[in-house]
């Protein structure tokens, strides 16, 4: 709050309202300076902040993973004791799922959905800013547990009696539960925001079937988020009431059934894993056609199979509970339903391969990550089918085979997709091309490291090594080719290579930031709408909102197809298209103004959470902050009046601030 004290100079100047000393002015709207980041509502700045924070948590999660692998490299490991190991794998999973992949999905969705559908910003810009700050404070709150008595140590799914007050006495689980509530609120508000943007603010002429595939997949993901988040909110509330206020929800002595937690968690859990993978499907469905120089094979099939995965995803959650005694009828039903989900996934893999078929493939780093995703995700998907078969799942569940499955699907799938997206869209976001030379090192080390780390885990799993085992002994490791000792060591070495591979990405970012060449306007000769803007795009994205005639509109404006000979001629370049859009520029562009209230409201949430754990008065103060934030927000118009801005913006900026 920029409360400015009364100037000491003699106030003989007649105080006219516009030049008066103001309080609670809207924050400054210039492009740079830390204030333009702290109070921004611009979807591009928020997307970059989401991405940067997610990458930071990726490093944190990665270090936790390397520590786990060091502990398991040799028999009777001394690196971590049992309690620290339990905290490490719990926080590794929670950080990777909730604080890296989900925010990275939000980063790409926030940045590129408005650009791909031809909008100037998301539907509710201030809610978008609140989403990011709530996520950031939730992530920090979650990791505060490390310093306040030990992090959560019950596994990322926190099964019922073990997460209760008797068996997890430390505050770790409370921090976990409340931290996820806060990031949950962030995801829910983000979901409402992006669905309204996609359904309501598309460019004229862009029907649903002319939308780019990434926007399609991101929209399915937002629907999954919209309906999955409340379920885990219920589960986390029940757990919090049990731990802090003496409820008996999971107390077996009162007649409770511990499986209630498993059901509530996995009803959220399974749509959650599709939330993690579908955006990466969307990204490589954008990257593959561009570097194969031909459109995506079977666009409607890819779109409907994405929606089918999202829909059927709601009917399979109990395949995580085949061994927890559901009774044969339920097990059989969910086993068949889980197999049914493999069909749409198969359709996607077929379509990607067909996109490559007959193309003119350029193996840029983005393309390499995309192709690696097809193969590695297929390996993970097929190992998934092997334990969709319930009886063999009773042999494989909770062993390292499952760890191998979901790492092939999550690392090989989601993270390779994210890296492909970063290399592909880096020029769009930052105006510079990431160096291909360092990129190749990054790709190959990650690909080899990933296979060396998670490949042997198939073997460890089938040799009966359970998950979450903090130690293994020489006596029970076996001798033959498939013994536990050798493959645990290989996996640990692989994880080091993987870490080095990821390090090369950050080197690439630093090198490019300092010495990278300025990227041309259309470096990859791309196809979709987001490339019809400057690199990086202006604050209002499009000078004039393009009317969309075809799918891959940008390609159709650049190339004309001669129907007889089928030969494709280039008619105009990206520069001409952009110049033309600049010529008939929209006169009045009303961009939403930055605001204090999102960060104030987001700050209230961790204060309440802190109060709930330690002292109720602090929670009441937090509640007061939230109430102040809500009503301050409600009273403030989304686009500020001119004199509301502090200092009053100069009227001559190219974007007319509506007075």
């Amino acid at each position, binding site marked *: 709050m920029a409360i400015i004290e009364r100037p000491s100079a003699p106030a003989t100047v007649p105080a006219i309202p516009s030049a008066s000393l103001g309080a609670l002015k809207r924050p400054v709207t210039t492009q740079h300076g830390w204030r333009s980041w702290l109070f921004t509502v611009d979807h591009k700045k928020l997307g970059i902040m989401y991405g940067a924070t997610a990458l930071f948590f990726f490093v944190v999660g990665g270090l936790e993973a390397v520590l786990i692998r060091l502990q398991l490299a040799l028999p009777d490991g001394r690196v971590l004791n049992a309690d620290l190991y339990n905290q490490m794998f719990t926080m590794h999973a929670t950080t990777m799922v909730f604080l890296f992949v989900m925010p990275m999905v939000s980063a790409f969705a926030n940045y590129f959905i408005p650009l791909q559908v031809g909008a100037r910003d998301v539907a509710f810009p201030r809610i978008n800013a609140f989403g990011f700050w709530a996520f950031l404070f939730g992530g920090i709150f979650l990791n505060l547990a490390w310093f306040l008595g030990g992090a959560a140590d019950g596994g990322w799914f926190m099964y019922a009696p073990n997460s209760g007050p008797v068996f997890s006495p430390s505050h770790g689980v409370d921090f976990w539960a409340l931290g996820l509530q806060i990031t949950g609120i962030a995801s829910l508000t983000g979901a409402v925001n992006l669905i309204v943007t996609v*359904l309501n603010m598309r460019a004229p002429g862009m029907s649903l079937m002319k939308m780019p595939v990434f926007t399609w997949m991101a929209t399915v993901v937002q*629907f999954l988020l*919209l*309906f999955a988040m409340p*379920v885990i909110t219920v589960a986390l509330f029940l757990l919090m009431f049990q731990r802090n206020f003496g409820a008996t929800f999971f107390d077996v002595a009162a007649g409770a*059934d511990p*499986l*209630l937690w498993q*059901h*509530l968690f996995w*009803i959220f859990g399974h749509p959650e894993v599709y939330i993690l993978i579908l955006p990466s499907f969307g990204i490589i469905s954008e990257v593959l056609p561009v570097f194969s120089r031909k459109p995506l094979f079977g666009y409607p099939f890819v779109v409907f199979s994405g929606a089918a995965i999202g829909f059927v995803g*709601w*009917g399979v959650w*109990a395949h995580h509970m085949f061994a927890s005694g*559901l*009774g044969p009828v*339920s097990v059989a039903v969910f086993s068949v339903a889980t197999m049914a989900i493999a069909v749409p996934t198969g359709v996607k893999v077929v379509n990607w391969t067909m996109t490559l078929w007959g193309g003119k493939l350029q193996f840029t780093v983005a393309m390499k990550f995309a192709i690696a995703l097809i193969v590695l995700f297929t390996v993970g998907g097929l190992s998934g089918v092997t334990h969709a078969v319930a009886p063999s799942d009773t042999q494989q569940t909770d062993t390292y085979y499952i760890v191998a499955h979901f790492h092939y699907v999550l690392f090989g799938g989601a993270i390779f997709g994210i890296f492909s997206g970063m290399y592909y869209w880096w020029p769009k976001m930052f105006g510079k091309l990431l160096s291909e030379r360092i990129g190749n090192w990054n790709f190959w080390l990650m690909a080899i490291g990933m296979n060396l780390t998670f490949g042997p885990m198939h073997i460890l799993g089938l040799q009966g090594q359970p998950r979450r085992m903090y130690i293994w002994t020489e006596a029970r490791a076996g001798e033959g080719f498939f013994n536990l000792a050798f493959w645990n060591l290989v996996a640990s070495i692989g994880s080091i290579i993987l870490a080095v591979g990821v390090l090369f990405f950050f080197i690439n970012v630093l090198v490019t930031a300092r010495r990278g060449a300025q990227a041309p306007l259309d470096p990859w000769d791309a196809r979709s709408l987001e490339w019809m803007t400057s690199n990086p795009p202006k604050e209002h994205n499009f000078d004039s909102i393009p009317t969309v005639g075809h799918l891959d509109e940008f390609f159709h404006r650049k190339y004309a197809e001669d129907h007889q000979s089928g030969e494709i001629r280039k008619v105009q370049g990206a520069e001409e298209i952009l110049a033309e859009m600049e010529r008939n520029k929209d006169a009045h562009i009303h961009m939403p103004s930055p605001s204090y209230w999102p960060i104030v409201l987001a700050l209230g949430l961790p204060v309440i959470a802190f109060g709930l754990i330690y002292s109720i008065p602090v929670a009441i103060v937090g509640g007061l902050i939230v109430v102040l934030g809500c009503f301050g927000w409600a009273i403030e118009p989304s686009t500020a009046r001119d004199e509301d801005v502090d200092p009053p913006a100069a009227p001559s900026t190219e974007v007319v601030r509506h007075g």
Partner: protein
Amino acid sequence: MTEQHAHEEHGMSNAGYVRIALILAAITALEVSTYYVDFGPLFMPALMVMMVVKFTMVVSYFMHLKFDKRVFSVMFYAGLFLAIFVYAAALSTFKFFIA
């Protein structure tokens, strides 16, 4: 009640709302009567039907879902039926519905 529809662009007149409210009050009274009068085997279905009727009346008239664009109905009913389907399946694994 049908003549009400075309009457006003933005939903119904105040009198129309009061009439809907009276119908809802009547159904609630009927519901409460199931506590005093024994309906025998008809008890459960009757209550369920009355609940659903009240629910849809409030949603379609008081919340204008009947007069608004279809996309609102799709969004709301998607969430509602998803909730019913998922939680019914979960409760059935707890042997809730087996006699």
